[in-house]
């Protein structure tokens, strides 16, 4: 099989740093850490007892996640603690819709030929480990055992040496990772299960009350899916979307945002104040803040600049949800204590209690709402590439504005159709 591999080798990292200095695509040079390679087909994991619970799938659509882009373009800091939970080299990609090819003897949930959305997380059940307390309560992303056997360390497919991700022709998955795609739901819709579930999980941690005004900071895929979930599932809430680029307004409004505000820093604070009829406290040498402010901010960017602004836009005792995975930098955080802001971190998703549908996995919730016609965020998919177009795909996902990109995906069926064509 072919797969886009990330290799943690210092000469390759150094080479990419140098080449990347001259052009974005330099990070993807053949001597860098990211390459499309021919690999041996993966074999299902586990001992004789649980080997039967794995399936082999062929990805049909795999989304390019912002965290992959950060990894590929070497944006992470050296002191990132999650390095303790992952293993190299690994095949990237964790937003996967796929078709089941083979199933082990003990598999009950799926059959060959089934279309599935693949949840990439590798918690206790996938590892054949007795469930930890967090897995027991459905909080799969908080699992204690991402470094427990029988295979290499890894939080999810796409950062584990032994469970290749979806930038490949072939994956293996434990059956608990597979969620059948209902009839009428497309593979592209299904490939957005992961980012939608991330957005929904964050909203669920601090759901808006009727009549509230909330900000969604960032109109990348995660931000747009947050907007979509808020607009479709919380009808009495006013959703204000924020980003830096005018081209995103169309997407934000399309997903259901009531207002789109373009800007950053002091200008943004003024605009939001005007929109919410709040007073602005202007300060020499410092970012202004609003007196009053919005009820909640869903920060899907999670970098220093967005946090610094968010804690100034939220009202006293308000909540800032940190969903985005930015690289940590200094920011002026005084309003957190002075205005008694609550900053809540949100990580992925699991088995949750949803207002609609009750207790289920985030993927099931999303797919059932898609099937019911309540959600359809696929208009945010702007760019589709075959796997061997991975360089163009990653550059488009990195230089979004230049490419007018929002969500970039690998479309394997297009590739297969082309290959089998006349």
């Amino acid at each position, binding site marked *: 099989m072919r797969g886009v591999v990330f290799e943690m080798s210092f000469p390759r990292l150094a080479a990419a740093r140098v080449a990347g200095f001259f052009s974005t695509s330099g990070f993807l040079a053949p001597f860098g850490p990211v390459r499309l390679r021919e690999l041996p087909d993966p074999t299902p994991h586990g001992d004789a007892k649980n080997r039967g619970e794995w399936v082999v799938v062929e990805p049909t659509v795999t989304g390019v996640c912002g965290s992959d882009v950060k990894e590929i373009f070497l944006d992470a800091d*050296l002191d990132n*603690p999650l390095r*303790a939970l992952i293993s190299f080299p690994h095949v990237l990609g964790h937003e996967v819709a796929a078709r089941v090819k083979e199933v082990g003897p003990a598999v009950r949930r799926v059959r060959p030929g089934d279309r599935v959305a693949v949840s990439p997380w590798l918690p206790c059940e996938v590892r054949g480990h007795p469930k930890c307390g967090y897995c027991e309560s459905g909080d799969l992303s908080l699992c204690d055992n991402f470094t427990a056997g029988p295979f290499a360390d890894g939080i999810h497919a796409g950062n584990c040496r032994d469970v290749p991700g979806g930038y490949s022709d072939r994956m293996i998955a434990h059956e608990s990772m597979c969620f059948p795609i209902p009839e009428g739901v497309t593979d592209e819709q299904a490939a957005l299960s992961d980012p939608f579930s991330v957005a929904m999980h964050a909203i669920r941690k601090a759901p808006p009350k009727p009549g509230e005004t909330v900000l969604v900071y960032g109109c990348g895929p995660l931000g747009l899916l947050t907007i979509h979930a808020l607009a479709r599932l919380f009808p009495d809430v006013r959703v204000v979307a924020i980003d830096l680029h005018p081209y995103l307004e169309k997407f934000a409004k399309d997903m259901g945002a009531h207002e789109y505000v373009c800007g950053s820093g002091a200008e943004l604070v003024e605009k939001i104040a005007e929109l919410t009829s709040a007073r602005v406290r202007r300060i020499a040498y410092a970012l202004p803040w609003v007196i009053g402010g919005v009820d909640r901010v869903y920060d899907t960017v*999670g970098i220093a600049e967005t946090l610094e602004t968010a804690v100034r836009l939220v009202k006293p005792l308000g909540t800032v949800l*940190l969903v985005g995975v930015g690289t940590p930098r200094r920011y002026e955080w005084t309003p957190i204590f002075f205005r008694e802001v609550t900053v809540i971190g949100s*990580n992925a998703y699991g088995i949750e209690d949803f207002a609609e549908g009750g207790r289920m996995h985030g993927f099931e919730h999303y797919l059932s709402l898609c099937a019911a016609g309540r959600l359809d965020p696929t208009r945010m998919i702007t760019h589709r590439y075959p796997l061997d177009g991975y360089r163009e795909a990653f550059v488009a996902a990195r230089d979004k504005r230049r490419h007018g990109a929002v969500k970039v995906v690998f479309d394997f069926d297009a590739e297969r159709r082309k290959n089998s064509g006349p």
Partner: protein
Amino acid sequence: MKALTFRIELPRLVFSKIAGILSPRAYVSGFGAVSYESVEEPKPHGKDWVMVKPTLAGVCGSDVMQVFLEAAADNPLSAVVSAPHVMGHEVVGTVVDVGAEVKRFRKDDRVAVSPWLSCSVRGLAPCASCERGDYPLCEHFFDGTFERGMHLGNCRDVGGGFAETMCLHESMLFPIPEGVSFDDAVLADPFAVALHAVLRAPPEKGETVIVWGCGSLGLMTIHLLSVLFPGTTILAVDHKRRMQPLVERLGATKLFTSRGKELVAEIGEHVKAPMRKPFFGLPWLQTGVDKIYDTVGAPSTLEIGVRVVRPRATIVMVGVAQPRRFEWTPLYFKEISLLGSNAYGMETLGEKRAHAMEHYLDLLADKKLDWSDVVTHRYPLEKFGDAFMAVYDKRRSGAIKVLFQP
């Protein structure tokens, strides 16, 4: 009258920054931003104002940050202060005169002072925050009859407690019950700050919590946790080994004095949490303690804090330090809640809703608290240099709480 004033004047700032390179003493030499001088007697801003003679006034960590000019230029609180002002906001004193419309106080009453200058003090109708009793979240620190300022000690028109006389609105005063000494009552402000922080996220029965920092705020947090929330396992973190006997007497089971990697490892061993070791950066605990009350609030304490709590834990950030970068990934990965906590207001403790200072004075009157050993130094106002230096260099002075005796 004589008072300690703070002046934001360019020559003074330049002098202290330059001479301060040679010795921190320059900041408190009298040529820096702070000086001991004669100022006008304070005047009432209405008929419901009260003249108070300060008996004792505590030096707060924020006073010291101010004196040694330790705020970053982009600190937004510069919008809620006005200068020059008389410093000092942890005050107890005696009423010397009352306005015609003052109802609750008479001459010679002993009072503890809440320094917040929110709506009622400014003669305004209460904003939404004041209505709820969240006075530090008041929307009107910039409005009303006198200059902007959030509390005593940073407002030009209402002088603080490092002075011979103060003039205060009646609503800022709380009578000190009989049998409660000025010495104990003067800790009302830091106690109230600690109480509010704990009530932002009170420990549940049987939880293990860390109190970060063993200055007076940290010590009070430890003591009130052990008195009001029995059954909580309290761990303390501070570099100062000498704090151990006091910390244990106030109710903590253990004091951790190491830093960085060792600190993470020691806490991990103590709470039996598996440790993850990335190739670079700090190690972290997969599980950990249930809550942290961070009375330091510095990048280093936050960085280690998010690494030693369990998933979905709460960190209450009550300390006021300068922002810097810290590696915050566990904040989202462990889904931690970081709660800011600012001062105090009306608080619900058990069945009773009252101002935090009233709760404190009640607890003192009921002999529930024991603060001996917390106050370490006392100075007259003219010795302000020694007083601020004692707090600035606690390691050398051995100071915990330093008081002025105006």
